[in-house]
Every structure is written in structure tokens, then in C-alpha cells.
């Protein structure tokens, strides 16, 4: 078990390093530089003293050779220092730390909703004996995956904020402000959960052990929930790991539509003004969340299905 965890951890670190390096290279290849971006971000262009820009470029270290910049930045990043944002002068880590709780609230609520709605839909669709109802339920996930999040958000705001004033249209204030954005983000995510879970539930219900259970006289609902769902949840759980990345990406759109502060908004703003230290921070941080989520999923697998660790586990026991 210890070896299993160590291997997973090493993989996670490799992914983080790759994310950092690739983002560094991509940002370096972009035309222009962040200092002139800041100077030209207002509409008032053409008023900037080139000597002053050069001085600022020097102060931020953008005039050094690429390799030196890379080594320098990576060395500090390892120690948790991503430098200061070019646009605000604030440390990148504290900017991200401020935005994180907002996004965690949003993605956490969305993930919960997605699992409940998507899972419920999959169970209902596979359980029902009515053919038309099953068809109807199974046609919902493709729809949920394909409607643009942006559009869903605007429709929800129009219906539930502008017209009926049930929820605020924007802001991070309180649980009521969380409802519409979380639902918006949960729709594509929940649809994905439903698709995967429904498919593996159908597969599970065809397995021999279901027949065995049925022969032993177990009820239909009991077989469905106790036996089939347990086995079918493994592939769905893998998807939940992937969903972590999808949720973070989706938060860019959702946080913009609903004017919520959070990682998504920080990302959008940082990319627009080419705030290189901040973009790097966001990329590595996003990778960190993704890696952590998948690590958790990997570690939960053995709990659901003991066979997964049997191979390395036996070695440990023998040693």
C-alpha cells in the first residue's frame, strides 16, 4: 500500500512540473511582454516613456535570458513563491489563496449537485421498466453536455433573478448567491456523471452475480442499489476525478456570467493582460487540484474494490 501511494505521489509531482514547464514555454512564446500590456491596458496608449518600460522590465526580470528566468522562477516556485502579479503587485500565492475559497464553494456545491442529479438520473433511468421514460431520461445527459454554460447561466439569471427576483444576479454574498451559479455549473458536470453511471449500471446489471443475487431471492431495488450500483460506481468515480479539472475550467465562464470573484475570474483577467507570474500560478494551482482529486480517487478505489491493491499489497505482506 505504501508503495502504491508513493508511486501515485511521484506521478503527481511529475504532472505538476510538466504543467509549470509547458505553461512557461507557452507564455514565453507569446508576442509582446507583460509590462507593455499593463501600460497599454487602458485605452490611453502611446503615452509611455520607453525608458521607463525598460526599467520596469528589468525590475521584473523579463530582460534576462529565457533559461535563466526559467531556472530562477522554478527554484522559487518549488519553495511556494510564484512572485508578484505584474498587474497588481500582490504576491501570486495570496491572490490565489483569496480566490480559492470562493471557487471551492462554487465547485463543491456544483459537484454535490452534479452527483446527486446525475446519479439520481442514471439510477432512475436504469431502474424504470417503462421504455418511454427510460428513453426520455437517457436523452437528457447529451442535452446537458451540449448546451453552452454561458447561455444556461444567462437564461437562469433572466428567469430567476431579473424576472422573479428569487436570487441575486451577481456577487459572492451568502448561500442565495451560490444557487444559480452552482446549478449552471452542475448541469454539464451532472450530465457527464449520468452518462457514465448509466452505462456502467447497464453493464453491471448483466453480470452473473446479479443473476445469483436474484436467484437467492433479493428484491429488485436491493439488487439495483446494493449490488449493481456499488460495482458500477468505480468508473463513475474515475470521472469525478476528471470532473475536478472540468469544474475549475467551467468556473471561468460561470464566475464571469455571475460576477463572482474566484479562481476563474482571476484566470480570465490574468490571461487578458498577460500577467505571466499570475498565469503560471493559476496553471500550477489548477494542476495541483486536478492531481489531488485524482490522487484521492486512486486512494479510494481500494476501499470500494479490495482487488485493486491485492497485487502490490501481497508483496508488502510477504516482505
Amino acid at each position, binding site marked *: 500500500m505504501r508503495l502504491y501511494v508513493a508511486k501515485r505521489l511521484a506521478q503527481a509531482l511529475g504532472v505538476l512540473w510538466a504543467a509549470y514547464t509547458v505553461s512557461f514555454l507557452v507564455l514565453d512564446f*507569446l*508576442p*509582446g*511582454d*507583460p509590462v*507593455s*500590456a*499593463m*501600460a*497599454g*491596458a*487602458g*485605452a*490611453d*496608449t*502611446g*503615452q*509611455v*516613456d*520607453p525608458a*521607463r*518600460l525598460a526599467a*520596469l522590465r528589468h525590475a521584473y526580470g523579463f530582460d534576462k535570458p529565457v533559461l535563466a528566468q526559467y531556472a530562477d522562477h522554478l527554484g522559487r516556485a518549488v519553495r511556494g513563491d510564484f512572485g*508578484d*502579479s*505584474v*498587474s*497588481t*503587485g*500582490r504576491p501570486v500565492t495570496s*491572490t490565489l489563496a*483569496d*480566490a480559492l475559497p470562493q471557487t471551492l464553494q462554487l465547485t463543491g456545491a456544483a459537484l454535490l449537485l452534479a452527483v446527486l442529479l446525475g446519479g439520481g438520473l442514471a439510477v432512475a433511468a436504469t431502474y424504470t421498466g417503462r421504455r418511454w421514460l427510460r428513453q426520455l431520461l437517457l436523452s437528457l445527459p447529451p442535452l446537458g453536455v451540449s448546451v453552452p454554460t454561458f447561455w444556461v447561466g*444567462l*437564461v437562469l*439569471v*433572466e*428567469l430567476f*433573478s*431579473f*424576472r*422573479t*427576483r*428569487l436570487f*441575486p*444576479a*451577481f*456577487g*459572492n454574498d451568502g448561500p442565495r448567491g451560490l444557487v444559480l451559479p452552482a446549478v449552471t455549473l452542475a448541469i454539464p458536470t451532472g450530465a457527464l456523471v449520468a452518462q457514465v453511471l448509466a452505462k456502467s449500471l447497464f453493464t453491471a446489471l448483466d453480470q452473473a452475480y446479479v443473476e445469483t443475487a436474484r436467484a437467492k431471492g433479493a428484491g429488485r431495488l436491493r439488487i439495483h442499489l446494493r449490488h449493481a450500483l456499488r460495482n458500477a460506481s468505480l468508473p463513475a468515480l474515475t470521472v469525478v476525478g476528471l470532473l475536478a479539472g472540468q469544474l475549475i475550467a467551467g468556473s471561468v465562464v460561470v464566475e*464571469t*456570467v*455571475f*460576477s463572482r*470573484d474566484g479562481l476563474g*475570474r*482571476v484566470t480570465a*483577467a490574468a490571461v*487578458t*493582460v*498577460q500577467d505571466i507570474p499570475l498565469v503560471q500560478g493559476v496553471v500550477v494551482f489548477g494542476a495541483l487540484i486536478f492531481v489531488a482529486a485524482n490522487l484521492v480517487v486512486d486512494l479510494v478505489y481500494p476501499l470500494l474494490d479490495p482487488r485493486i491493491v491485492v497485487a502490490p499489497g501481497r508483496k508488502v505482506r510477504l516482505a
Partner: protein
Amino acid sequence: MIAHPDSRTRRWAALAALVSGSLLLGACSSADGGTSTGDGGRPKPGGTLTFAVSSDAGCADPQQVGSNDTIYSLRQVVDSLTDQDPKTGRIVPWLAKSWEVSADATTFTFHLRSGVTFSDGSALTAHVVKDNFDAVPELGALGTLAQGYLSGVESTTAVDPLTVRVRFKQPNAQFLQATATHSLGIESSASAKQSPQTKCSKGVVGSGPFVLNGYVQNRSITLAKRAGYAWGSSLWTKKGEAYLDKLVFKVVPEAGVRSGSLQSGQVDAIGSVGKANEAALQGGTVALQQRANPGVVFNLGLNNSRPLLKDTKVRQAILAAVDRQQIVDAVFPTGTRPATSILAHTTPDYTDLGKDLAFDEAKAKSLLDSAGWRTNGDGVRVKDGKKLSLTVKWFANAATNQPALELVQQQLKAVGIDVVLKQLQITQFSPTLQSGDFDAVWGNVTRADPDILRSSYSTLLADFYHLPAGPLDTVLTRQAATTDAARRKQLVAQAQTLIVQNAYVVPVVELQTQLGMAKKVHDLAFDASSRVQLHDTWIG
């Protein structure tokens, strides 16, 4: 929230509207109540104004930011030495009771009002002003506006506790107007001495009618009324403290959400209203308010050193081939004016050159004919085997840029000029200007002083457009050294005429700032730079 008795039916009606697909086309206001009419009623103190803006500059220091969305709030925190009358462009007293400008416009002496305090309790003195002006050149990349206003400063001295003198190396007539801007708003000494980064994230201490209460990046800026405020600008109608108790600026990036929030009463005012949202906002409980931004209008900034564009006739042909009214009607918010000079009509010393900027397709064609450019089979003119083709570079700092330029492209095609549009990242814009690697660039500059012409078009300065050295330089240098208002106006008029008649650049359309606000909001007025002053604003 109290449920409306009819909320059920309304919800279904909304759903029906959604299904029929008309929903996002800006359905009309369903707001109820709100019987207030335009003006009228007596001003009354108290209340909170909630204002939704589209972006956050990431900084809470008025000396550093240049984005209107953030200036709206931060302007209320600081006072300036002077103020500028939006109607006449005249500079009037604010923190300075009076001032003298030396005849050569190099030395400016301000006599400060006594009894002014900052919200940290410290008093306004000549030393505080000096601390501010000494710190401004050290601001980072964000502070380029303020730095530009003080460029060429030799020294700032406190002559006595309430007299401060600023000396420049060269004549610098624009400086007086610069003292009226938010960029040179006066902060307390302690504030001015903080690092630019600290001022950005923590905000600043000013002497203004409102105090910064809270700044949450990307979310909101909250201001509270300054009790005991008694040193307002001479332009303000109310003496003493502001009417409003609290100002809350919320960052709402999505235009449709901003206008919907205004209509449904979730906010009282919004910024950046584009043509697309106008229809939804007209009538009902909401009013639109607009003013043209002073300064250099949106224009095709021609690179006069390019072989094609060295020929005055070609440049003049482009000038005549642009149908400004058509562009305004198709792309820009209602009330936007086509350019009638290189300066917007709200700029002091603006001169109406509308006749020179009239659309005249026949004239454009004959100019090109006489310059030797012959029409070709595919409609693009040719001379010596070369096509009359130019690339216009632009970047997306306004939603109107692309549609406006696409129209320009069509209009120029009609006279045989091929235009290629090339979008740049914002980060590439400044390097492009500096390198001179462009035929034309699309842009504007907001500034309520005609000296903006000198910083933009004098060949003695950055000279991004590579104009030929000549009479324009002389006129621009002279206006910067002239303190006599009538004489300066004359010189500025000459400069505008020279730029337009030689078609050094092609003025197209004025930029208009458009706000939406609930009709219960009164006296929310634009200042001379088309930003807002909220001291006199009241809700009733």
C-alpha cells in the same frame, strides 16, 4: 423576499418567452413600482448608491489607475488642486484657492486652502503636495497617466506651509489641467510614501468627500461619506458633505447582467452601456446618460513614413472616403458624434472642421486618380505594379472596434483601397507603436486638454506616426508655452487644421461614455473628462 401573488404566472410567462426564443433579445422591463419621474423633488441626504461597473483595474490607488470603471469610485476619495468646468473647460479652484503660472508656462505656484484634512486626521500642507508629486514618478507600470502629466518636472518646493511651487524644464501649459485630474489627486503624506503595491492593494487616504471603506479585488469597492467635509470643488452645487451615506461599486463583467440588474432594481446605476443594451434600458424606471470623451477621437493613425502613405493625396483620399455618419449609425451608441476634428467636441479649444471631414466618394476617387493610382480588374487600385493595400492594426479594448473597422474596410474598398485588418493582443500594441511596424493603427486617447495633440503628433516627442517635421511642430510647441487663453486657442485651432487638412491621421468617431441609471438617482453628472462626480448626487 416576498413572493409576488402573480409570480407563478410570471414564471410561466418567462418560460414561454424563453421557448419562443425572444428572451435574450432584451425583453422589456417587467419592473413594477418605481413611479419616480426624471428630475424634481428636493435633494435629500442619506441612502446608498449601488453602481455596477464592468471591470476592476486590480488597484485602489487613483494615481495609478487609468480605467474609467475604477476611476468612477476612486475619484470620490481624493480631491485635486483644481477642478475643470465640463461646460467651458476652464480650470477653477478646489484645494488650491488660486495659482500663478509664469509667462513661459514653466513655473506653477498654488496657494492652498487652509483647514483641509485627510481622513487620517493629518492636514493638507504644501509639503503633502510635494510628497505626492515626488512619489508619482516612482509609480510602476500602472501609473503612466500621472507620470506623463509630470514628465519634465524639475522640482516641487514648499514655499511656505500653504504655498507650493512646481517647476518644469520646458514650457508645459497642460500641467494646470493635469492638476484637475484624478491622476494627480492629492493623498495624505503617509499614503503617498507607501509603495505603489501597498497603495494598490490597501487603498489610499485622501481628503475627498468619501472614504475608502473596503476594496475586494474583482468584487467591489465600498465608500462611506466623510463626516465634516467642507472643501469641495467650486463647481459643486452642494456645500459641505455629500448627500449619499454610502457608495457601493460592484464589478459585473457581463453587459446583459448589468442592464438586467439595473432594470430589476438590484443596482442603481451601471457603466459601459453599449448599443446592444440600449433598447432594453429605454423607458420605464431607467434613464441613459451620455457624454463624449474629450481628447483624441478614434482614428486611423497613419504611419506617414510608409511609401504608400507619404503621398498627401492618398491620405486625403482615405479621409474623404470614410463615411463617418454611416459608421456611427451602424455601430456606436445613440448620440455618438462622428468626428468633426481630431479632437472630440468636448475638448477645450476644439475647432469644428466638419466640412473638411465630410464624406465625399467622388473626391476620394479623383484624388487617387491624380496620384496615379488606376483601378484594376478586381477593384483594387494599382500603380507601378503595386496594389493600393494597407494593413490596419487594432486591439480589442472596445466591442465597437471590429464592426467599425469592418465598415471602414468596405468604404475604402468602394474607392479602390484594399484594407487588411489585423487584430493584436493588448500586449503587442505599445511595442508595435514604438517599432513603427504598421500602416495604420486604430485608437483614441481621453484627455481634457488639447496638449494631447503635442504628445501624440509632435515630431519632437515619441512621434509614433512619423509625421514630417514642420509647421505643426512649431504650433504644438508654442501652444504648450502659451498661458494666454485666446492665443492658445488660436494655436490649437491651427494644429487641428494642419492635422486634418494634411490627413496625417484620419479622424473617424468620438468615443462616448454612456451610463444607465435608475430615475430615482439625481444629479449624477459627468466631469470634464467624462467621468463621474458623486458629491452632489442624491436618491429620492
